[in-house]
C-alpha cells in the first residue's frame, strides 16, 4: 500500500507553490475554485460532523435529557459501555451466548452470506455479457443495468410487494406450481428466509457492478487470449490465468465497496422490517442499531461511539484488504517485485 501511495503525484507545498510560474499558480487557483463546492461540502457535511461525533463520544449528550442541559465529559465511559453492550456485540463472547443475536454478529453473518454473491453474481453476468456467442448483448446490458437506476427505496418497496408472503406474486407462482401452502416461504418474516430475501433484493441492483466488471473484461488485451489459445489452454485455465488477474483490480474495487456497504447495511431492514429487528432480532444490523440509538433513542454520545467503532472496523478491514492486495491484485504495466 505504501508502495502505491509513494507513486501518487506529490502534493504542492507552500514552497513549491511559491516557486510556481504565474501560469501554474493561476491554474492551481482555478483548480481549487472549481473544487471548492466539493471541498466545502466535504468540510461541512463530512469532516466537521465526524469531528463533532468524535467529541460527542466522550460526552454524555442525550437529547432526551433536555436541550438546555450542558453535556459532561465522561472520558472513555461510552467506549467501556460499548464493550459491555450485548446488543452491539463487540466482544465475540456475546455473539453466540446472548439470548438475542448481537448486531455486529448479525452484520458479519449476513456479510459472509451476501459478499460472495455480491462479487460473483455481477462477475458471472459480466462474463456472460462479454461472451460473443450471447445475442442481443446491447439490450441485455441495458436491461440488467436498468434496475440500478430505480431509486433504492422504491425497489425495496417493489420487492417487498413481490415477496409479500400473503399477496406477493412469487408465492402465488410457487403455489400455482404445486408448492404446499404450508411450505411457502414467509420471506422477510422468517428467520431462515430473511437473509436470502435481502440478498435477492440486492441482486436486482447489481447492474452497476456488472458494468464495471464488464469494462474490466473488455480492457483485457485480446492477444493474451490468442496466446492462450495457441498454448492450448482450456476455458477455465484461460479465465484463471488471464481474465481473473487482468480484472483483479476491478474485483478488488468491488470487494472494497461491497464490504464497506455491508458494514453499513441499513436501508433494507429499516424499510422491509420496520427497523425493529424482526424476525427474532435477526435484522437489527449494527448500523440500524446505531441509527436507533442516535435518532430514535436520541442518545447522541453513545450513537457517536457506535459510529466511531464502525468507522474504525471498516478502516481496519480496508487497510487489511489493501495490505493483501499485493498478493492477488495485478496491475498491468506495473513492475512486480
Amino acid at each position, binding site marked *: 500500500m505504501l508502495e502505491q501511495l509513494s507513486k501518487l503525484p506529490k502534493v504542492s507545498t507552500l514552497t513549491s507553490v511559491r516557486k510556481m510560474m504565474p501560469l501554474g499558480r493561476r491554474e492551481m487557483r482555478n483548480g481549487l475554485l472549481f473544487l471548492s463546492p466539493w471541498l466545502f461540502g466535504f468540510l461541512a457535511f463530512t469532516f466537521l460532523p465526524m469531528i463533532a461525533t468524535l467529541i460527542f463520544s466522550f460526552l454524555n449528550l442525550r437529547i*432526551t435529557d433536555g436541550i438546555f442541559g450542558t453535556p459532561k465529559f465522561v472520558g472513555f465511559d461510552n467506549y467501556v459501555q460499548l464493550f459491555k453492550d450485548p446488543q452491539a456485540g463487540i466482544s465475540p463472547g456475546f455473539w453466540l451466548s446472548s439470548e438475542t443475536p448481537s448486531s455486529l454478529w448479525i452484520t458479519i453473518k449476513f456479510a459472509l452470506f451476501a459478499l460472495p454473491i455480491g462479487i460473483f453474481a455481477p462477475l458471472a453476468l459480466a462474463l456472460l455479457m462479454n461472451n460473443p456467442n450471447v445475442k442481443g448483448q446491447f439490450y441485455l446490458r441495458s436491461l440488467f443495468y436498468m434496475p440500478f437506476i430505480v431509486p433504492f427505496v422504491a425497489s425495496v*418497496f417493489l420487492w*417487498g*410487494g413481490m415477496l*409479500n*408472503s*400473503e*399477496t*406477493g406474486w412469487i408465492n402465488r407462482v410457487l403455489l400455482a406450481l404445486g408448492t404446499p*401452502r404450508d411450505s411457502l416461504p*414467509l420471506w422477510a*418474516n422468517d428467520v431462515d428466509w430473511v437473509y436470502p430475501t435481502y440478498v435477492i433484493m440486492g441482486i436486482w441492483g447489481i447492474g452497476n457492478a456488472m458494468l464495471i466488471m464488464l469494462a474490466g473484461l473488455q480492457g483485457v488485451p485480446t492477444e493474451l487470449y490468442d496466446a492462450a489459445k495457441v498454448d492450448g489452454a482450456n476455458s477455465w485455465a484461460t479465465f484463471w490465468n488471464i481474465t481473473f488477474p487482468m480484472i483483479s483490480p476491478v474485483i478488488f474495487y468491488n470487494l472494497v465497496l461491497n464490504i464497506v456497504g455491508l458494514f453499513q447495511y441499513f436501508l433494507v431492514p429499516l424499510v422491509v422490517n*420496520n427497523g*425493529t*429487528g*424482526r*424476525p427474532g432480532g435477526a435484522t437489527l444490523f449494527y448500523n440500524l442499531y446505531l441509527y*436507533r440509538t442516535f435518532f*430514535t*433513542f*436520541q442518545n447522541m454520545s453513545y450513537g457517536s461511539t457506535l459510529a466511531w467503532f464502525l468507522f474504525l472496523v471498516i478502516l481496519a478491514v480496508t487497510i487489511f484488504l489493501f495490505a493483501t492486495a499485493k498478493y492477488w491484485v495485478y496491475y498491468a504495466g506495473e513492475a512486480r517485485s
Partner: protein
Amino acid sequence: MDITPQIESSGFDTSIFDPALVKFYQTEEGQVGLPFAVFPGAFFYRPDMFDEAGLNYPPQVYGEKYVMPDGSEVDWNWETVTEVAKLLTVDVNGLNPTEAGFDRTQIVQVGYEPQWQSILSVGTFYGGAAKMYSGDTKGSYESTIPDSWKESFQWLYDGMYGEQPFIATGPLAGAPEFGNGNLFNAGKSAMGLTQTWYTCCLGDFAKAGNEFQLGIQPIGVNGEVNGRIDADTFRILKTTEHPDEAFEVLAYLITTGADKLLPIYGAMPAVPEKTDAFFEAKSKDYPFVTEESWNVFVQGLAYPDAPSSEQYQPNSVKANARFSTFFDLLRNTEGLDFDAEYQKLIDDINVLYNE
C-alpha cells in the same frame, strides 16, 4: 406549569369546554393546559360493505344499541365489533370466516383495522385508560399495565391469527394492494377506529367513488366507552417570570386566536359550538358524510382517555420503542407464544423504566 391559579385569578370560563375534556389536560403537575385543537375518535365504516353483508350500520349516538341481523339489540362493544367484523371479512371466494371453506390465505377485505393506532391506543380503546407505571424514582418504577390491556393485545392477535380472522396480518396490511398499511383508504377494510385527523388521508378513497360514515366508539371490557382523543395545546414554562401575562396570551390563542389558528392546524375546535365551520370545510372534501356522522366526533369530546395512551413514561423513548416492537411482533408472527412474549415485554419495560 400548573395554570390553575391563573385560571382562577383571571376568571377564565372553563365551562365553554366539556368538563371531561378539561380534565384531560390534567397531569400530576396540575392543570397544565386547556383544550385547543382536538382529534376525537370515531368508527369509520363503509356503508356499502355493510349493505353487501346484510348488516345494520354502527350506532351514531352514544347509548344506542346495535341491531344484529337477527333483530336482537346488543351493546356496541368489542364483542359486537368482533362479530360484525367477522361477517365483513371476505375471502377471494366471497366467504366470511364464519363460513365453511373460508380461505384465510386469500383475504380480499377485512372487517376491522386499528387504523394507524399504536398498541397502547389499542389497549386504551379496549380496556380503558390507565396509568402505565407506578413509583416515583428510578429504581422504583414498575409497569402497571392492566390485565384488560393484555386482553386487548390478545384480542388483536387472535383477530389476525385466530380461527376466524377479521384483522389483516402484518404482511397483508403491508401489501400494496392493501394500501401499504392505509387499509381503510385503500378500500380494504370495512371499519377502522381512528381519530378526526384521519380525514386528512382519505383522498384516494373518495376519488375511487367510495363513501364512509362514522359510528360511535365501542364500549370497552370495563363496561364504559373508552374513547381516545389526540390533542394539541399551548403550555407555559415553569421558569417564566410573567405567568399571568403568558396566560393572557394562552387564553387568547385558545379562544379568539383559535378561530384563525385551527383551520391552519386542520384540527377540530374544542368548543362544540365552533365545530360547524370545521365540518363544513370537511364536507367539501367528503360531501357524502352526513351531519349525524360528523356529530359523532362532537359527541366524542366527552370521551377522552385520561390519562392519555400517549402519557409520560419513564425513559419514554425507549419504552415506546419497545411497545412498538411488540406491536410489530404481534402483527407479523404466526404461532406466537403470546403469554411468553407479553411477559418478556413487561420484563423489558420494567428494566427500561429504571435504566
